C-alpha cells in the first residue's frame, strides 16, 4: 500500500545525497600528500567541527543508540555521556598539543616522541581498531537497504564502497572532510525532523529535549505492564550495576579521546587555536543528536507499546509491524494479545531489535513517506562518513607510517608517496568490501570494544607523552602492551570469541568497561618503567616543551619564509 511512495522517496533522497557527495569530492580532488593526509591544514574551524561530528557519529549512533536507550532506559546514559564526555578530554588534554606537533598521523606522534618500535605497534593498533569499526559501518548500511529498498543488504556494502572509493581515493582528507560537512547536514536534518514532529504529536511542544520529561511517568506505567523495568530507574538496565556503569562510561570517554580517526581530525586545522575551537564545534554539533536521542528512544518506545497494547491478534497489530517482520528485525511469538515486549529473541510475545527503532520511528509515529526516505538517507550518511574517515586512518597508517617512515626510510618522492597512499586506500576499501560481505561472526561485538582497546593503548601514552617529559620509549612500549594484553584477554575471557566459551563477568564488570582498568594499568606500567630506565634525550624533552606554546609555531613559520 504505502510501500510504493516510501521506496520512491528513499531512492530519491539516496540518489540526491550521493550525487552531492560525488560532486563535492570532484571539486576537492587533490595532488599532494599534505592535502591527501591533512587537507593542507586549511580547513575552517566550523567546517572541521561538522566534519568531526559526521566522522564521529557512526551508523551505531544514528541507527542504534536511541533504540538501545529505549530498552536500557536510564542506563543508556553510558553511551550518551561516554561518547560526548571524551571530547572534553580531547579538547583539554590532546587536540591543541597534537596540532602543535603538526604531523600527519597518530603513530607519527608516538614514533617521534618515543621510538620506531612504538611507532610500529601504534600503527598496527590503529589499523586493527579502525578496521573492526569500519566493518560495522558497512553492515549498518545493509539494514537501510534491506528494509526501504527491498534489496539484499549486500548491495548496501557494494554501493557504499563505490561512493567512498570515489571520493576517498580522489580527494583524501580534503575530499572526505568536505563531503562529511554535507553528510553531517543530511544526517542531522534526518534525525531532527521526525523527532520534532513526534514531540509535537505526543507532547504538544516541538522541543523533544523538554517534552520527553512529560511522558516519562506514562512510559514507566506502560513499561511495567509489558514486563519491563522503569525507564527512569537507575542501574536496572545493566547487570553489573553502578560499578559497571561507571567503568563503561569512563572506558568510552577515554576510548573516544584515544581513537585515531578522531584525533587525526585536529591535525587539519590552520592553528592550535583552531584545534580548540574545532573541538567545541564538534561537540556542539554532536550534542544536537545526542541530546535528541534519549527523547527519540522514549517517544518511540511509548508509541510502540501504545500501538501493540490491547491488540488481540496478528491482524490487529499496527501496519509497521509486518514489513519489519519480513526483514526479521521484528518477531511476533503470540497468536493472541501481546503482553510482553523484549529486545531478546524469543524472550517475550514480541521481539523488536533495538537496531531498527530509529529507522522505524517515523513509521511507528505514523509520519509521511518523504520523512521515512530522508531517514534512510541520514542513516547512509552516518555510515558513509564514518567509514571514509576510518579508511583514511587505515591507509595513512599503512602508507605513511609503515611504508614511508619504515620501509622507504623517508626517501620516497612526493609522487611515489601519493601513489602508495592511493593504493593503500584502494586496498583498504577492497578489504572492507570483502569483510562487509562476509562479516566475521564476532565483529559486531568487537566494534564496541574498539573503544576499550583505544582506551587501554593510546590514551595513556599520549597523555604522558605530552604532560610528562620523563616518559620514555621503554615505558610506553611496556605500558601499551600491558594495556592491550590485559583488556584483550578479559574480552576474550568473557565473550564467545574465536570459538571459546564465555565466562562470567568478574565483579559484574562487563568487557566494555574493562578499558578503564586497562588504561590505569597502562599509566602505572609506563610511569614505573620510565622511572627505572634512562630519560629521553634532551632533544625529545625540548620537543615536548615546545608543543605547550602555540607561539613557537609563529616563529618557526616566520623563520621558514
Amino acid at each position, binding site marked *: 500500500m504505502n510501500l510504493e511512495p516510501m521506496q520512491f522517496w528513499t531512492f530519491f533522497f539516496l540518489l540526491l545525497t550521493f550525487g552531492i557527495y560525488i560532486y563535492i569530492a570532484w571539486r576537492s580532488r587533490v595532488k599532494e600528500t599534505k592535502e591527501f593526509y591533512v587537507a593542507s591544514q586549511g580547513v575552517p574551524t*566550523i567546517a572541521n567541527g561538522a566534519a568531526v561530528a559526521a566522522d564521529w557519529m557512526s551508523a551505531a549512533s544514528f541507527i542504534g543508540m536511541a533504540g538501545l536507550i529505549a530498552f536500557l532506559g536510564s542506563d543508556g546514559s553510558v553511551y*550518551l*555521556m561516554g561518547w*560526548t564526555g571524551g571530547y572534553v578530554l580531547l579538547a*583539554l588534554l590532546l587536540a591543541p598539543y597534537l596540532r602543535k606537533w603538526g604531523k600527519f598521523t597518530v603513530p607519527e606522534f608516538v614514533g617521534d616522541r618515543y621510538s620506531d618500535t612504538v611507532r610500529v605497534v601504534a600503527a598496527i593498533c590503529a589499523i586493527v581498531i579502525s578496521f573492526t569499526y569500519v566493518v560495522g559501518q558497512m553492515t549498518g548500511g545493509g539494514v537501510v537497504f534491506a528494509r526501504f529498498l527491498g534489496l539484499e543488504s549486500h548491495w548496501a556494502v557494494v554501493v557504499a564502497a563505490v561512493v567512498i572509493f570515489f571520493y576517498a581515493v580522489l580527494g583524501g582528507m580534503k575530499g572526505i572532510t568536505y563531503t562529511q560537512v554535507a553528510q553531517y547536514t543530511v544526517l542531522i536534518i534526518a534525525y531532527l525532523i521526525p523527532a520534532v514532529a513526534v514531540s509535537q504529536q505526543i507532547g504538544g511542544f516541538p522541543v523533544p529535549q523538554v517534552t520527553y520529561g512529560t511522558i516519562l511517568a506514562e512510559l514507566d506505567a506502560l513499561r511495567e505492564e509489558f514486563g519491563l523495568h522503569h525507564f527512569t530507574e537507575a*542501574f536496572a538496565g545493566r547487570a553489573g550495576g553502578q560499578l559497571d556503569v561507571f567503568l563503561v562510561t569512563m572506558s568510552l570517554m577515554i576510548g573516544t579521546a584515544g581513537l585515531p580517526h578522531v584525533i587525526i581530525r585536529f591535525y587539519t586545522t590552520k592553528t592550535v*587555536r583552531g584545534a580548540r575551537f574545532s573541538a567545541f564545534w564538534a561537540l*556542539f554539533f554532536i*550534542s544536537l543528536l545526542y*541530546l535528541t536521542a534519549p527523547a527519540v528512544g522514549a517517544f518511540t518506545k511509548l508509541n510502540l507499546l501504545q500501538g501493540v497494547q490491547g491488540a488481540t491478534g496478528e491482524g490487529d497489530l499496527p501496519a509497521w509491524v509486518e514489513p519489519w517482520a519480513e526483514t526479521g528485525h521484528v518477531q511476533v511469538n503470540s497468536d493472541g494479545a501481546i503482553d510482553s515486549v523484549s529486545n531478546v529473541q524469543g524472550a517475550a510475545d514480541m521481539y523488536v531489535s533495538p537496531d531498527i527503532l530509529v529507522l522505524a520511528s517515523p513509521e511507528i509515529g505514523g509520519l509521511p513517506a518523504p520523512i521515512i526516505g530522508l531517514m534512510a538517507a541520514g542513516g547512509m550518511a552516518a555510515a558513509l562518513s564514518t567509514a571514509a574517515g576510518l579508511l583514511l586512518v587505515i591507509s595513512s597508517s599503512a602508507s605513511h607510517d609503515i611504508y614511508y617512515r619504515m620501509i622507504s626510510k623517508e626517501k620516497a618522492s612526493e609522487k611515489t608517496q601519493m601513489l602508495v597512499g592511493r593504493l593503500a586506500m584502494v586496498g583498504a576499501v577492497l578489504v572492507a568490501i570483502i569483510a562487509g560481505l562476509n562479516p566475521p561472526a564476532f565483529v559486531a561485538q568487537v566494534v564496541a570494544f574498539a573503544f576499550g582497546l583505544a582506551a587501554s593503548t593510546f590514551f595513556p601514552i599520549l597523555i604522558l607523552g605530552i604532560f610528562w617529559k620523563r616518559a620514555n620509549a621503554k615505558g610506553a612500549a611496556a605500558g601499551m602492551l600491558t594495556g592491550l594484553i590485559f583488556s584483550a584477554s578479559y574480552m576474550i575471557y568473557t565473550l564467545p570469541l574465536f570459538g571459546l566459551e564465555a565466562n562470567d563477568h568478574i565483579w559484574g564488570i562487563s568487557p566494555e568497561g574493562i578499558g578503564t582498568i586497562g588504561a590505569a594499568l597502562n599509566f602505572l606500567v609506563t610511569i614505573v618503567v620510565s622511572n627505572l630506565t634512562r630519560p629521553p634525550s634532551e632533544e625529545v624533552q625540548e620537543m615536548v616543551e615546545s608543543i605547550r606554546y602555540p607561539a613557537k609555531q609563529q616563529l618557526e613559520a616566520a623563520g621558514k619564509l
Partner: protein
Amino acid sequence: MSDVTHEGSSGTAPPADNSWRQRYWKKNVRLMVVLLAIWFTVSFGFGIILIEPLNNIEILGFPLGLWFAQQGSIYTFVVLILVYALWMDRIDKEFGVDEPKGKG
C-alpha cells in the same frame, strides 16, 4: 564563531627569558584542573554516583539524576570546551603567544 584576529597583536614575541613559560604553563594547567573537576562532578558525580538520591527531586517530569545523566552532563561538556577555548585565547594573548590568522 569567527576566526578574525587583530593584525596588531601578532608581532609580539614572547619575552626573552624563559620564566614566562612556567607561568603560562601553570595558568594553563590550573584552568585544565578546574574544568576537569567540573567535568567529573557533573557526569560521574551527579549522573552516576549520586543519581539515586537526585532522582527523588523531580523537575518538569524529569527525575534530576536521570536528567543529569542524559541531558545535563552533555550541556555541561559543550560549555566546558567553549570556556576552555575562550579562556586560553585570553591567556595566549596575555603572554603574547597568540597565533596570527591564516597561513603563517
